[in-house]
């Protein structure tokens, strides 16, 4: 049976040949690539090119001022077997990560839950809590941190007013200096809080009502309703914060004058990489450190994704 198809009056007259259609497709493709080309050029010249170069340099001895000399895997072996500062920087970074990332989540989620209860002036609170995220990683704040936590800083002055007089320099002592940077990171919980707040708003109110009718208290509702439904958001925030913690640099650089001191206590991995590359001009070794960091971040992300299969609940799962 013939099917009548309504066509525009001139449809029959404008039918294009296969060659013309191919030409048109090529034209469309070309246009697409042209629109894409700024990104492609940027990616190749700014990301992929330097990455390939650094991968090559990581197998060389390269002092920047002289041509690189191929040394095979020497840099990697030196990193793993002969360089105690590599391990120190790794330890400092991991300590920073495993302490600050969970603390950021706890603070952010706690405040998001409070703000989600419909407090008056929510937008003001949200802005106030978010503000440190905007300025927290800046040079000015890192300098402020020095004045806060130094021996004659604001913290000790405040302690003195309540009779807890001390001259301990929290930032100048290797026992406590890293913790001041952890506090600085936790203080920037605002960005995570905003995301948690958005996630909390997505949880249907009827689920809480049903749970309440079944006799669930506030804690039970939090563990059985909020956490499971918020787990994709928690996973996202943790992943972003883990990657960010591996890349932490500014605050340690400013607070320690670029040394990672006192006594290497704030020697973040990235700061050590910077020292080797741009102070010692050992760019081959710094490149190897860079690839080491990439492997670490990738492994951590892969681990988190693997964990997420068991811990993250997506609403459409059965």
């Amino acid at each position, binding site marked *: 049976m013939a099917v009548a198809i309504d066509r525009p009056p001139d449809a029959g007259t404008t039918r294009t040949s296969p060659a013309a259609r191919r030409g048109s497709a090529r034209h469309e493709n070309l246009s697409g690539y042209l629109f894409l080309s700024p990104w492609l050029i940027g990616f190749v010249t700014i990301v992929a090119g330097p990455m390939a170069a650094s991968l090559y340099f990581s197998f060389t001895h390269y002092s920047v001022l002289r041509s690189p000399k191929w040394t095979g895997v020497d840099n990697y072996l030196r990193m793993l077997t002969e360089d105690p500062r590599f391990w120190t920087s790794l330890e400092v970074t991991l300590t920073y990560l495993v302490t600050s990332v969970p603390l950021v989540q706890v603070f952010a989620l706690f405040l998001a839950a409070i703000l989600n209860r419909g407090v008056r002036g929510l937008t003001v609170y949200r802005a106030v809590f978010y503000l440190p995220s905007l300025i927290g990683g800046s040079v000015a704040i890192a300098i402020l941190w020095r004045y806060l936590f130094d021996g004659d800083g604001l913290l000790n002055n405040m302690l003195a007013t309540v009779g807890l007089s001390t001259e301990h320099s929290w930032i100048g002592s290797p026992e406590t200096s890293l913790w001041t940077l952890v506090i600085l990171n936790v203080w920037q919980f605002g960005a995570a809080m905003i995301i948690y707040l958005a996630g909390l708003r997505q949880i249907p109110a009827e689920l809480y009502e049903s749970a309440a009718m079944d006799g669930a208290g506030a804690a039970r509702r939090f563990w059985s309703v909020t956490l499971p439904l918020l787990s994709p958001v928690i996973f996202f925030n943790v992943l972003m914060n883990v990657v960010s913690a591996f890349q932490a640099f500014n605050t340690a650089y400013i607070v320690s004058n670029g040394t990672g001191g*006192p006594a290497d206590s704030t020697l973040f991995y990235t700061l050590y990489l910077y020292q080797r590359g741009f102070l010692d001009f050992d760019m081959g070794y710094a490149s190897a450190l860079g690839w080491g960091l990439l492997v670490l971040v990738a492994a951590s992300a892969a681990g988190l994704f693997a964990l997420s299969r068991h811990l993250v609940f997506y609403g459409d799962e059965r």
Partner: protein
Amino acid sequence: MVAVAGCGGTRQGAAHGNSITYAFWGSPSRAKKVNAVIELFGARHPGARIRTQVADYSSYVEGLTVRAAGGGLACALGMQSTFCAQYAEAGLLRPLDDLTESGQIDVSNIPDDVLAAGRVDGVQYMIPTGTFVRILGYNADLVASSGATAPTSDMTWDNYAAFLREMQRGLPDGVRATEIEATNMFTLTSWVVGHGERMFDGDRLGFGKSLLAEWFQLWLELTSDGVTVPPSAIPKQTGSVELTPLAQGTAAIGTRDIPHLHVTEQVLAANERGTAISEVSMPSPEVSRSANVLGANGIAISADCGDVATTAAFIDFFTNNAEAALAFKSDNGIVTNVHAQDVLIGDSKTPQGVKRNVTTWRALTEARDLTTTTYPAGLPSLTTELARLYERVAFDRMSVDEAVDAFFSTAEHVLG
């Protein structure tokens, strides 16, 4: 009239015609002074054009390396005796001996001891335009109020340690006799040359491990006696001069480059923590042996500079012209040209701090109380390592012997 070398290169730093680039480090204030010199140069050399690249010190040093790697060095390069060898040995700097011998760059008014600070393996690579010498500066009010006899220029290190202990007893709470100098490469150099040893012997350290161990031990003992600021204050010593314990009035004496003395005095006066910083020579075990170690800032020419003639003319003008000296006001170290020093001292518009720096320098040179040392490539890494290792010792993270071994091991790796 500047003769033009007609081989304009294609690289960024290479000049085209009479146009060259002068890269240097410093504050906006220094950049203004350099621009004033360039204007004067332009008036004398119509057609010559000097472009500038300026950054703060650490960015400049990093940028210099990156530009060198990319083949983009400026023709005229701000250089320092501490890192000159790094670039000279890599073949990135042009030897200047032919230019000084032909008179294109007149160095006749620069003392040879000072010129030597710009030589690497006997070849002149940098024309020193400003010097820095580390000497002892002390808060005269604090020292007087402590009841201790003022320090003198003929102290041994033992005398100095005794003086610090005596002074500490009379200082108010919260003020220590001195800073922790163990972390400072220039002060260590003073210690080494004062002991009759050489800091560097070519591309190696020129002294033995025991001397470094004694150095660390001296400062550990002084700290343990409560004479120095605590180790937690070390970061304050490595920041800006204005924030150091000496400038803040929480330490009474410390080593400083001469140009920093006036800055320190100004900060103290602003905070009402003292009215004058006086200075004496660095301690030395033998009075006849000077431990005041000289360093220099200067200008070098990159190896691939396409307009050497204009660059040489600019360096010559910068170094020798009286108007240029007045415009630059000895902003980056004490001006090295003795005539320029006279001009600065004699001009009523010269800031008092500059006059004082020049006068102090003159006194040292006239007394021949200076020691020149050469710095091998890799010194910046070693400088960082010294501070790091002493910090570890001071915080009981490492023994003195371990730190000394680590320092020598690093030196073997990074020097040369």
